[in-house]
C-alpha cells in the first residue's frame, strides 16, 4: 500500500443519503478473482444507460468532475454488503477520499485497509463542501492526514477523527497483516489456553 501524504483534490458532489455498496459496485461485477477493472463499473447503474452510454446527468460523467479525487456523499455512506470491491471500485475510479457525515462500519474498515480515506465531518461542513463542489468544481481542498484535517480554500481547517492505528498504517503505507503476524506468540498462548473449540474437520459423528 502506498503511504498517504498530504494531497490536494477537487470534489465530486453526490448529495444522496444511505448510498449502499450495491450502488457503488453492483453484485454482477463481483464475479472476479482479482481487483482489476472495478473502477469502470463504479456506480454502474447510476452512471450508464442500459446500452452502456453514459448518463449525462450523473455527476461522474460531467467533465468538470472527471478528475475529482474526493467524493462528497450523504450520511451512512457505504451501507449494506461487506464487499471490499466497493472501495476497490472507488479507488479504481480515481478517488482517494470520501467525505460524509458518517460511514457504515464495514465500508469504513475496508476503506482504511486500502488507503481510501473515509473523512467524517459535521453536517455544516458537509453542506459547505457540497455547495463548494457544486458551485466551484475546480476548487481543490487539502487533505492532511498527519494533522487530521482538511483545509478549505478560505484557509479554514476542519479536524476529522481517525484512530491512531489506522492513521499510522496509512501514513507509513503498512498493512495490518504484518502487525498481526508479529503477534504470533500471543496467538499461540491464547490457543493453548483455549484449545477445546469447534473444529470443522472433526465432526461429532
Amino acid at each position, binding site marked *: 500500500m502506498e503511504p498517504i501524504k498530504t494531497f490536494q483534490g477537487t470534489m465530486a458532489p453526490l448529495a444522496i443519503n444511505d448510498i449502499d455498496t450495491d450502488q457503488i459496485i453492483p453484485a454482477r461485477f463481483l464475479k472476479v478473482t482479482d481487483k482489476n477493472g472495478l473502477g469502470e463499473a463504479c456506480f454502474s447503474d447510476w452512471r450508464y444507460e442500459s446500452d452502456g452510454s453514459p448518463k449525462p446527468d450523473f455527476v461522474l460523467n460531467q467533465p468538470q468532475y472527471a478528475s475529482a479525487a474526493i467524493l462528497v456523499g450523504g450520511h451512512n455512506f457505504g451501507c*449494506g454488503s461487506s464487499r471490499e470491491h466497493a472501495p476497490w471500485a472507488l479507488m479504481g475510479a480515481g478517488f482517494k477520499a470520501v467525505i460524509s457525515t458518517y460511514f457504515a462500519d*464495514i465500508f469504513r474498515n475496508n476503506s482504511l485497509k486500502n488507503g481510501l480515506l473515509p473523512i467524517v465531518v459535521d453536517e455544516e461542513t458537509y453542506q459547505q463542501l457540497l455547495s463548494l463542489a457544486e458551485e466551484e468544481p475546480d476548487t481543490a481542498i487539502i487533505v492532511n492526514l498527519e494533522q487530521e484535517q482538511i483545509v478549505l480554500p478560505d484557509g479554514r481547517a476542519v479536524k476529522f477523527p481517525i484512530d491512531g492505528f489506522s492513521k499510522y498504517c496509512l501514513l507509513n503505507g503498512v498493512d*495490518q497483516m504484518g502487525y498481526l503476524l508479529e503477534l504470533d506468540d500471543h*496467538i499461540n498462548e491464547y490457543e493453548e489456553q483455549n484449545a477445546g473449540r*469447534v473444529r*470443522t474437520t472433526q*465432526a461429532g459423528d
Partner: protein
Amino acid sequence: MGQTLFEKVWNRHVVKPQTADSPAVLYIDLHLIHEVTSPQAFTVLRERGLPVRRPDRTLATMDHSTPTTPRNLDGIIPVLDVQASKQLDTLTRNCEDFGIPLYALGTEKQGIVHVIGPEQGLTQPGMTIVCGDSHTSTHGAFGALAFGIGTSEVSHVLATQCLLQSKPKTMAIRVDGTLSNGVTAKDIILAVIAKIGVGGGTGYVLEYMGSAIRALSMEGRMTICNMSIEGGARAGMVAPDDTTFEYIAGRPYAPRGQAWMDAVNDWRTLPTDDDAQFDAEVVLSADTLTPMITYGTNPGMGMPIDARVPDPDRASDVSERVALDKALTYMGLQPNQSLLGQPVNVVFLGSCTNSRISDLREAASLLRGHRVAEDVRMMVVPGSQQVKAQAEAEGLDQVFKEAGAEWREAGCSMCIAMNGDQLAPGEYAVSTSNRNFEGRQGKGGRTFLASPLTAVATAINGAITDPRQMLEREVIV
C-alpha cells in the same frame, strides 16, 4: 457492574487488549468463506508465502454466484457462466491448496453460508464467527458474536485467526408481548429497522431481548439477527437458552456426552447480567405489530402492510424528502397510496433471511390447495441441500410445484442476482430476502421485502396481500 452477553463473548476472545495506540486483537473461533469475497485474500497469502493458520476452524461453501437451476442427467448442477465457473474453480483450488473443508456446489451439505453453519451445529453460543459477508450477523441468534468482514480481513483471519477490532457500543432491542396470527420474526425485524433507520445501529452490537424474542424458534431468531446489518449494526445477538440448546443438540458438530453437559453449563453463564448497562435501548411491542412491508429502496423504508406510502411533502427535512422522492420514483409508487392490491411479477422465497425448513413449512401450509396467480413467477429456493432434502422428505416440494412455483437448488439466488436468478428491469417482486436496494435483485428490478406468509399470500392473489386475510379463512397447521 454486570456484563452484557456481548461483553462476555468479547472478553473471552481478547488476545491482546485495546490500547491508545492499537485496537484489540480478537481471536476468531470459526471462519466461513465463500467464492466471492475470498479469492483476493488467498492471493495475498500466496504473495506472502503464508499458510492458513487454522484450516480446521475454517469452512468453505459455494453459494453466491452459483446457479439454482436443475441438475443434469449426471446429477451435476451445470455452471454456464464462465466468470462464475472460474470463481468456483478458484475456491476449489484454494481449499485444496490450503487444506480447508469445502461443501462444493450440489454436494449434500452445500448451501448458503449462514444456513449451513447452524445446520451442522458449527455455530454455538459464546463463539466468535466471521465471514466475508455482512449477513454473518445471522449466527448471533445463538449468542455468538458474529459479523461480516471485508476481504482484507478475510486474509487476516486466514493467516492469523485474528482480527483487529475496536470495541463497539451495545444497544438493547426489547420486544415484549405476543405476536398475532400472521405476524412473524421477519415482521419484528422489519419493524425494528423502520424504527431505528438504516443507519441507526451503526457502531453498535444489538442484543434482542424480551418475551417476544424468547418465544421465537431458533430459525425465527436467525431471521432477526440476519437483518441487524440492515439497521447498520455489524452484529446482533440473542442470549442462549433451552431453545438454543435443543436446536444444537445432536447436530454433527455439537459436543457429545460429558462435553455437551460442560458446554451447556458454560453457555448458561453467557446471558446478560441483570445489572449490566447498554449504551442505548429501543423498545417495541409485539402485541400491536402487524405484517410489515417495505415501500422504498432501503430496508429502513418499511411500514405496516395496511399503511399508506409516506408523502415526501411531509418529510421532516430536505434530505429525507429527497431520499423519499428518489425512492418512490424508482419504485414507481405514489405518495399516500396503499400497497395492498399492488400487482407483482415475481415472488421470491429464499435467502439467508428466510430459506430454512420452518420458513418453507410455513409457506407451504398457506399455499397448500392454492395456485400461484397466472401472471406471477414464484421461485422457492431452499437455503441448503439439507433443507431441500428435508422439505422433499416432507412433501413440501410437491406443494410448491403443484401450486405452480419453481422448486430450485440451494443458493443465494435472487437475493443477490449475480447467478442468473434476477428480475427484469421494471419488474416488481415481493421477496423474503433482506435488501431492497436499487437493482439489488436485478438492474431496474423493484423489491418489496416481506415475510414468507406475505410472500405466499401475494403469490396466490398476484398482488400484495395481507396474509391475515387468508389466515382468517383457513386453519394453519
